[in-house]
């Protein structure tokens, strides 16, 4: 019997629900020795801003218990060089590409969406309103339903493609933000971005990150991410993309059962650069082994 591993995000159909998470997969090419990018549901590239950003001073990463903190500071080449250089290379990869964007003003989000509007080879936009590493912008948008809705509107108006709003977990009630962006026209929401954390080197009495605080990711945050996906999936009708500590096939299934239509693999790519491809294969096998014929059967099937 034929297996249907496809899932839909708005009009956009993915071959399977396995995506890679922004900032953890470079621009894709680094992983070509380990993964057939065309076999993935999609890849999400490192966040792009209107102007180039040098990012934060080092140290930028530190390991924690079953996780890591990062304060990359959204280093990127800026949208113009992204279009003229990176996209040329990315188109050759044959992957479904989601471009992750971030701004520190509504105008910047609008402008970004406008410049990317007719660049070919882009399947969808993911809007980062939640990155905790940059003091201005970022967090503010992600923690205020009104601002989150405004960003969603301006980006959606500029873009004919699916617009995925990426939510911050550092809020009292994530379902409020999710509902606000749904009403504002988001095609889907993706969650979670990193939790804000910190680590101190007691020998120097200095924060381990030059930026003092950073984003916590990895298996440590999975229970929080899964809970939020479950809550948001129960609160909105648009598709939910689950992110947060996903490393194994069991993790993928847990998130889909909780209500995720697709998932993104982040920090796990650092531990095993082949993991995303392995999960695509494992997912097919899982459906067979459990006598399922479609990926969609799994979505939200957890008993309440």
């Amino acid at each position: 019997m034929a297996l249907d591993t496809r899932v839909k995000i708005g009009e956009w159909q993915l071959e399977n629900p396995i995506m890679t998470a922004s900032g953890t997969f470079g621009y894709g090419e680094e992983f070509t020795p380990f993964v057939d990018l065309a076999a993935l549901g999609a890849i999400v590239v490192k966040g792009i801003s209107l102007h180039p950003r040098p990012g934060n001073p080092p140290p930028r990463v530190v390991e924690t218990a079953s996780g890591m903190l990062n304060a990359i500071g959204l280093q990127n080449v800026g949208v113009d060089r992204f279009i003229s250089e990176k996209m040329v290379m990315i188109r050759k990869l044959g992957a479904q590409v989601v471009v992750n964007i971030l701004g520190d003003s509504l105008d910047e989000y609008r402008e970004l969406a406008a410049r990317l509007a007719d660049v070919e080879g882009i399947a969808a936009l993911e809007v980062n309103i939640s990155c905790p590493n940059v003091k201005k912008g970022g967090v503010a948008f992600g923690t205020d339903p009104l601002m989150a809705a405004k960003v969603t509107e301006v980006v959606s108006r500029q873009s004919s493609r699916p617009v995925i709003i990426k939510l911050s977990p550092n809020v009292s009630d994530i379902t409020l933000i999710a509902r606000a962006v749904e009403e504002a026209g988001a095609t889907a929401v993706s969650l979670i971005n990193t939790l804000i954390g910190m680590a101190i080197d007691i020998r120097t009495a200095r924060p381990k990150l030059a930026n003092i605080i950073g984003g916590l990711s990895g298996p440590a945050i999975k229970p929080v991410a899964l809970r939020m996906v479950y809550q948001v999936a129960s609160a909105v009708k648009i598709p939910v993309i689950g992110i947060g500590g996903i490393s194994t096939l069991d993790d993928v299934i847990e998130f889909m059962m909780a209500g995720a239509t697709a998932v993104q693999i982040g920090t796990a790519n650092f531990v095993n650069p082949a993991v995303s491809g392995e999960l695509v294969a494992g997912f097919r096998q899982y459906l067979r082994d459990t006598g399922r014929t479609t990926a969609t059967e799994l979505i939200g099937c957890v008993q309440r």
Partner: protein
Amino acid sequence: MQLQYLENGEILENAVVGPDTWRMQIRSPKVAGAAQPGQFIMVSVGHETTDPLLRRPLSIHQAKDDVLTLLYRIVGKGTKLMSFMKKGEEVSLLGPLGKGFQIKSASHHCLVGGGLGVAPLLFLATEIKRRLPTETMSILLGGRSKNELLVLNDFQKVAPVFLATDDGSLGMPGLVTELLVKEVKGPATIYTCGPAPMMKGVAQCARDKKWSCQVSLETMMACGMGACLGCTVQRSGFDESEKKYVHVCKDGPVFEAGEIWL
């Protein structure tokens, strides 16, 4: 793009070679076969558990035929777990990674190592000797004291070795930089790896003499392959542009000294 592999190697040896310092030999045909001096690997240190989470970067100490050698010091739980690994067990390697040393013809090759910084220099010395057999080479090694000078015999087999220790327990009392001034008279190409202050001293000295100098850097790393942008060091002479930083795992770990320190 250069070849990189994810390979499960078989541990052939894992033994103590100095204070808290171990050497691991691994049969890993792919990684060993593609390795260049100055490159490194990311090794996974746990069994299926998520703590420690990330792979650990280690220099390629030697690569011969299908055998890769690592030299590591126990500084935390990852290296501690490595020291528990036994002969015959499998270990997952990602590599070879990064840009290694540039080996070009020179009137004299001088390798300067301090502490664990000797790790990448053995493979480098071996390759210089193999590729440029007619050229002269000297190896300068420094450490706080005698027992910090590691695997000396291996180096002595390749080229003349000069030693310096802070406490004078072996070789010249003092810093390896003083040794450099003392021993290397004519023009030379310098290759150095060790503690940052030592490398800065060496780079300084090379600059004064207008010698080319390659330095091998360390930073915290998450991916080791250019994906996380976590391993930056600031470049000299660039300020607020996106060129401000280089990435040790991809642009390095080996750099021209002038690119990092003016």
